[in-house]
């Protein structure tokens, strides 16, 4: 049952060294503030999973907190490569990074299988793809009815899922809308879930009966952090800070510049630093 609490407590109560941690978000609603708290608390040997690891995963990898990454596209969207990830893969800096690489279809299916309580996902995929030769977790299965050969990957069930959403009500139910990615599946497939939200309201009011609402009993902790997705965005609250994504390309290019930026903006900072971004521009 969701408890409304402070960020530091929510992370401490739900994340452990060595966990399989999922912080999903497909460009939208990426839990930046929560990821920074994970970094501040100094967890070790995490396995991270995400379809589109971007800046927060680059930060965790660059800080040496990650043992293994499960992913399908590791880039800075619209800008280029993910440079701390690259440094880890190419030069083992600051440590070697184990990778398990999939396609988007495989990851999406794996999260869905995790939420559905199945051991694996079955789909029509990976035909002629080189990943089948380098990832032993990609196998095939024969349809018992038609004989068609289909791809199979293990279900993705995280120890803890952390997502950002637009709002919660005072009971702790969570609403998200817009580009909803794979967050619902990630939460329902995880053992524990932490959700940061832009605001807590008395009730959701006049919303579509089909809005994505995660009932409070699917979540362990709800934390209010206005602006907590910045430089990603929260539909209806603030728009994507594309300028920062471009800046990150420079910040992350050099190890020392990166470490200095992390020290100043993450290690010596806190969730309250995100609030300023909400007032920055018109809601979009």
């Amino acid at each position, binding site marked *: 049952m969701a408890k409304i609490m402070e960020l530091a407590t929510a992370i401490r109560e739900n994340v452990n060294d060595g966990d399989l941690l999922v912080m999903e978000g497909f460009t939208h609603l990426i839990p930046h503030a929560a990821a920074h708290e994970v970094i501040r608390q100094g967890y070790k040997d995490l396995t991270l999973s995400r379809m589109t690891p971007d800046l927060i995963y680059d930060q965790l990898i660059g800080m040496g907190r990650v043992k293994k990454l499960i992913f399908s596209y590791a*880039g800075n969207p619209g800008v280029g490569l993910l440079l701390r990830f690259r440094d880890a893969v190419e030069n083992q800096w600051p440590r070697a990074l184990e990778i398990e690489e999939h396609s988007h279809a495989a990851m999406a299916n794996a999260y869905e299988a995790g939420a559905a309580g199945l051991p694996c996902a079955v*789909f029509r995929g990976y*035909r002629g793809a*080189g990943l089948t030769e380098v990832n032993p977790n990609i196998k095939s299965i024969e349809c018992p009815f038609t004989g068609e050969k289909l791809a199979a990957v293990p279900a993705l069930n995280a120890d803890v899922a952390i997502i950002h959403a637009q709002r919660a009500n005072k009971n702790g139910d969570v609403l998200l809308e817009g*580009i909803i*990615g794979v967050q619902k599946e990630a939460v329902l497939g995880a053992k524990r879930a932490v959700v940061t939200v832009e605001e807590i309201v008395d009730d959701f009011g006049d919303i579509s009966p089909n809005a994505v609402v995660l009932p409070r009993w699917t979540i362990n902790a709800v934390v209010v952090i206005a602006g907590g997705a910045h430089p990603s965005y929260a539909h209806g609250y603030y728009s994507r800070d594309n300028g920062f*994504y471009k800046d990150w390309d420079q910040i992350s290019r050099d190890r020392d510049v990166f470490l200095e930026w992390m020290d100043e903006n993450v290690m010596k900072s806190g969730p309250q630093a995100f609030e300023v971004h909400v007032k920055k521009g018109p809601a979009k």
Partner: protein
Amino acid sequence: MTDITLAEIMTVTAARALKNTDVCFVGIGLPSEACNLARLTHAPEITLIYESGTIGTKPNVLPLSIGDGELCETAVANVSVPEMFRYWLQGGRITVGFLSAAQLDRFGNINTTVIGDYHNPKTRLPGGGGAPEIATSCGEIFITLKHSKRAFVDQLDFFTSIGHGDGPGHRGRLGITTKGPTRLVTDLCVMLPNPDSCEFEVVSLHPGVTREQVIEATGWPLAFARNVSETAAPTAIELDALRDLKQRTTEAHAAA
């Protein structure tokens, strides 16, 4: 219209390949530019789909990422990512997938994963994202990519997604029933797969481009079709629409 660049000819030519009735899975970058130009010119009813789950989107400016807010706000429908890949892509609803590449070979196979060895790469690229299944589940594939020896290679470093594999019949042997790459538009020429060999060959050269230029920028022994024509130059309407779109995009991203 003066001072038309080869990059503009590439985008306009790529856009012309799309039809009003197409349902198109759009890759970010050059494909996104071409697809939106088609929508703003000859194909106003085209359905553009981005893998973030936005179906029938009509952005006023080009998105920086595949999940920019405007894609969602202007879409006919927004669905979750699992639904996108299961019902819409795997379900066979998409007529055209529009892709780009880091490396491409003569059969339209694509690498966006690594330069060098997979386990010890010289350059680790972002990876395939949606491409492995886009390449096999869409009715056909268009590719747009700037011509260079670095990109048009004899041997791919990694086989991210299949084009025509090692030639005729390869897709069929893998149980793939879709057409695969049917058109390649570069900043120098248009290429189509030869019906017998499945190898991309030049069918038209952009205005002012020579055969030698294309041969020089291609990393494999390049084939030309029996009749090579000149690519029709962009019209004033096409150029205006493209330049307006790029101008709006630059202003929007600078202001953000």
